[in-house]
C-alpha cells in the first residue's frame, strides 16, 4: 500500500523570515499512530498545519493519498482539508454554541455555504453527530453550551467534530497540553480507539514521553525545524532524549 502522507524536502518560512521547517522528509503509512515530539518552537505545529494545508509549504513536495497537494487552492484545497480532521490544544470550539452544533460544524466542508448558513443541518447529519458524541461518551451533553464543559469534555467534542469529516487522517496538535494528567489519558484513549477501531491514521504532537511510549507506533523528533530522530518509541534512550530536548532537560512522568 502506498504511504498516506509523503513529504519530500518540505520547508516552511514565515513571512517574518523565521524558518519553521527545514528540508523535512518523511512518510506516514495508513493506520499508523505517529507522534511528533520536540521543544516548543521546533516546528511541530507548523508541520501539522502544512499537512492539512492551513499553511502552504515554501518549498518541497507534499503528497497525500497519492495526489500532490503542495500548492492546491480553492475547491481542491477544501476537499483536501475535508479528508483530514484536526484537534487543537485549546479545543477551539465555538464557546457560545451547543455541543451538538459544534459537532455539526465538522460537516461544514461537505455543505454549501447558503445551506449551512441558514442553519439547516439534515436529520441524517444530526443523527451522525449524536453517534459521534456517543463514541466520545458525551452524547448526554449535546444540548449544553460548549463552554459549560470541562477541558477534557471540550476536547472530546472537538474529536467528535473531527469525526464528522469521516477523516482518513486525524491531526492532533498537542491535544492534552492544557489538560490535567487523568483527563489526558482519557483523551489519548479516545484517539487510540479511533486509530485502532476505525483504522484512522493519527499524527499527534506530544510533550510527555510517557504518553508517547504508551500510544505511539512510531516517533519523529523535530529540533529547530529538522528531523533529528525517527524510530520506535522504545528507541528513545536517555541519550536521544538529551539530544532532542537539550542537556538540561529531565524527563517528567505522567501516569
Amino acid at each position, binding site marked *: 500500500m502506498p504511504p498516506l502522507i509523503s513529504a519530500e524536502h518540505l520547508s516552511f518560512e514565515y513571512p517574518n523570515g523565521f524558518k519553521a521547517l527545514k528540508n523535512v522528509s518523511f512518510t506516514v503509512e495508513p493506520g499508523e499512530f505517529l507522534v511528533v515530539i520536540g521543544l516548543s518552537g521546533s516546528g511541530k505545529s507548523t508541520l501539522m498545519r502544512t499537512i*492539512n494545508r*492551513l499553511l502552504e509549504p515554501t518549498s518541497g513536495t507534499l503528497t497525500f493519498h497519492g495526489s500532490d497537494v503542495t500548492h492546491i487552492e480553492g475547491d481542491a484545497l*477544501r*476537499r*483536501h*482539508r*475535508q479528508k*483530514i*480532521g*484536526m484537534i*487543537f490544544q*485549546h*479545543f*477551539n*470550539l*465555538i*464557546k*457560545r*454554541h451547543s455541543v451538538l452544533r459544534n459537532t455539526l*460544524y*465538522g*460537516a*461544514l*466542508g*461537505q*455543505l454549501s*455555504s447558503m445551506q*449551512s*448558513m441558514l442553519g439547516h443541518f439534515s436529520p441524517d447529519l444530526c443523527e451522525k453527530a449524536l453517534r459521534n458524541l456517543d463514541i466520545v461518551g458525551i452524547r448526554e451533553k449535546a444540548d449544553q453550551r460548549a463552554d459549560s464543559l470541562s477541558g477534557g469534555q471540550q476536547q472530546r467534542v*472537538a474529536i467528535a*467534530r473531527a469525526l*464528522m*469529516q469521516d477523516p482518513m487522517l486525524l*491531526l492532533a496538535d498537542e491535544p492534552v497540553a492544557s489538560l490535567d494528567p487523568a483527563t489526558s489519558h482519557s483523551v489519548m484513549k479516545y484517539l487510540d480507539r479511533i486509530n485502532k477501531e476505525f483504522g484512522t491514521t493519527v499524527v499527534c504532537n506530544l510533550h510527555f514521553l510517557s504518553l508517547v511510549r504508551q500510544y505511539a507506533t512510531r516517533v519523529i523528533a523535530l529540533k529547530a525545524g529538522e528531523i533529528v530522530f525517527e524510530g520506535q518509541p522504545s528507541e528513545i534512550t536517555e541519550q536521544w532524549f538529551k539530544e532532542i530536548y537539550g542537556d538540561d532537560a529531565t524527563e517528567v512522568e505522567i501516569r
Partner: protein
Amino acid sequence: MKRHLLRLGIDVFFGAYIATIIDRILIPRVILDNVTTPFDGMHQALVIGLALVLAVLGSVTSASVGRLILDGSVSGSWQRTVAMNIAWISFTLTVLAGWVVTGISPSALFNGQGLEGAGRIFKALFTPNTDIIGSALLAMVETIYLAFMATAIAVPFSFALSFFAARNLMDHGAIPRTIYVAIRFVTNFTRSIEPLIWAIIFSVWVGIGPFAGMLALVVHTISSLTKQYSEQIEDVDTGPMEAISATGASRTQVVWFSVVPQCVIPFLSFTIYRWDINVRMATVIGLVGGGGIGTMLIQYQGLAQWREVGTIVILIALVVWIMDVISARIREALK
C-alpha cells in the same frame, strides 16, 4: 535620509510658526493695538528667514527641535538647551496667541450688567414652566425615535461593511486589501465630519426637519459602528477560525461560524451604546433644525422664554441620564 528630511521639516515648521505668531498676532493685536499690517514682502521674508535660520542652525550645530522630537534627546549640552528653549518659546507663544485670539476677558465675565442677565436666566431655568411639559415630552419622544431609527437603519449597513473593514479577514490578496483600505478611508472621512454638519447638509437636501436629522445620524452611525464592529472582528480568537477552516469550510462559512458568534454580544453592546449617544446627538442636531426636542429648545431660546427653556433642559438631562443608566445596565447584563 527620510529621517533627516523630516527633522529639517520640523525645524522649518517651528521657525515659521514662531515668526508667524509674533508677526501676525502678537505684534499687530497686542503691541500695535489692532493695527493690521498687510502680509507683504518684508513680513514674508521674516517668516521664511526665521524658518531657514532654525533649519540651517539645527542641521549644522544639531541644536534642533526636530532632533529633540524624533530622537527624544539631543547630544551636546548647549545644543540641548537651545532646542528645549525653542520648544518652550513655541509653547509659550501658543498660549499667548491663544489668549489673544479667544478674546479671553475676565472683565466681561464679572461685569455687573452681564451678571444680572445671567441671574435672570438661571432663575428662570430653576422655575420651569410646567405648562409645556406635554408638548416637550412629545418632542422628546420624537428625538428618541429619531435616534432609534437612525441606529436601526445604520446597523445592517455597518454589520455588512465591518467584515470588509477588518484587516484580519482582508489580508489575502491585493483586491481584498484595496477594499479594506477604501472602506476604512470612507468611514474615517465621514466620521470626521460632525453629525451637526451632516444635519446642515441634509437639511438643504431633504428640507429642515427630523428626516434630515435622522439621515445625519445614519451617516455618522454607519461609520462609527463599522469602525467599532471591525475592530472587534480584528480582536477575535483565531483558534476557532482555524478549526472551522480545517474542516474544509469556505471563507464565508469560516466567518459566519467562527467570527460572528464571537462578535454578536459585543456588537449588541456597541449598538445599544450608540443609540444612547444618538439620543444626545439628536438633541444637538435639533438645534440646527433636525426636529425633536432640540428644535423646540432653540425656538424658545430665540423668543427669550427662559422658563420654557429651563423645562426643556431639565427634561433633556433626565432623559439622557435615564438612557445612560439603562444602556449601562443592559451592556453589563450582556457581558
